[in-house]
């Protein structure tokens, strides 16, 4: 049984890194100078969000990454992407407001700020 668990973990880890590379390679193709700074900030914040201790922040980063990949693969269009971004923002505003005062700035940066930049990066992706 333990080996089954290990296999599952290994598979899930491979899946995550495959998703990571899908987004990273998509972002590598973005050569537009005007979004270079946004792209760099987005990648930095997304990496921080994915490693955060808060499950909500990690969950939001994971969803955002998956949706950017879906957009790049044209499984959803920009209208759908924007619609999901708005849903995420609405849901996260309540979360950010419920954080202790000292944690609010960081929570906002790793959630709402990431979503704002994602909207700009998404235009360059398609």
């Amino acid at each position, binding site marked *: 049984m333990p080996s089954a668990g290990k296999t599952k973990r290994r598979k899930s880890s491979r899946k995550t890194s495959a998703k990571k590379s899908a987004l990273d390679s998509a972002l590598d193709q973005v050569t537009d100078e005007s979004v270079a700074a946004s792209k760099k900030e987005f990648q930095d914040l997304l990496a921080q969000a994915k490693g955060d201790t808060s499950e909500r922040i990690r969950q939001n980063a994971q969803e955002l990454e998956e949706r950017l990949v879906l957009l790049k693969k044209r499984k*959803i269009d920009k209208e759908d992407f924007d619609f*999901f971004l708005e849903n995420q923002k609405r849901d996260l505003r309540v979360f950010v407001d419920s954080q202790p005062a000292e944690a609010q700035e960081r929570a906002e940066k790793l959630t709402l700020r990431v979503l704002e930049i994602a909207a700009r990066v998404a235009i360059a992706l398609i």
Partner: protein
Amino acid sequence: MNPIAARNLIVRNAFLCAAAIAITSCGTATINKTGSDAQIETLRSYELTFIDEFAVPGKRFKPAAFDARVAEGNAKFQQAIANEKFTARRPVLNDLAAQFKADAAHLRSKASRGKVTPALASEMKKDVNKIYDHALGR
């Protein structure tokens, strides 16, 4: 009965009454909360069924059927808000009602142009489940 014993009896009875009220109100709050959770689960099911019915790639869009389901859904949300006894839940229900309207507007726009994809349907359902879980404090 001497005055001190009488006073002690009054204090004891007052304490017992206060304790009984506190326990009863806790029980009532729990019952209300449980009923409220069940109501939210009913609304979640309705919204997921609605997405399953209309977010189907290639399905011909029938505006009248769509609008009838949206009107039925809006009425369910309004009824849930009006009947909600757990007052702290009313803003949550208002948010869920607004989410249903936003989902319906997006789905109408996509389905009427034949632009529904399997990924749209599955991501919409994922969002609905997440938002309802958060509303229930999970």
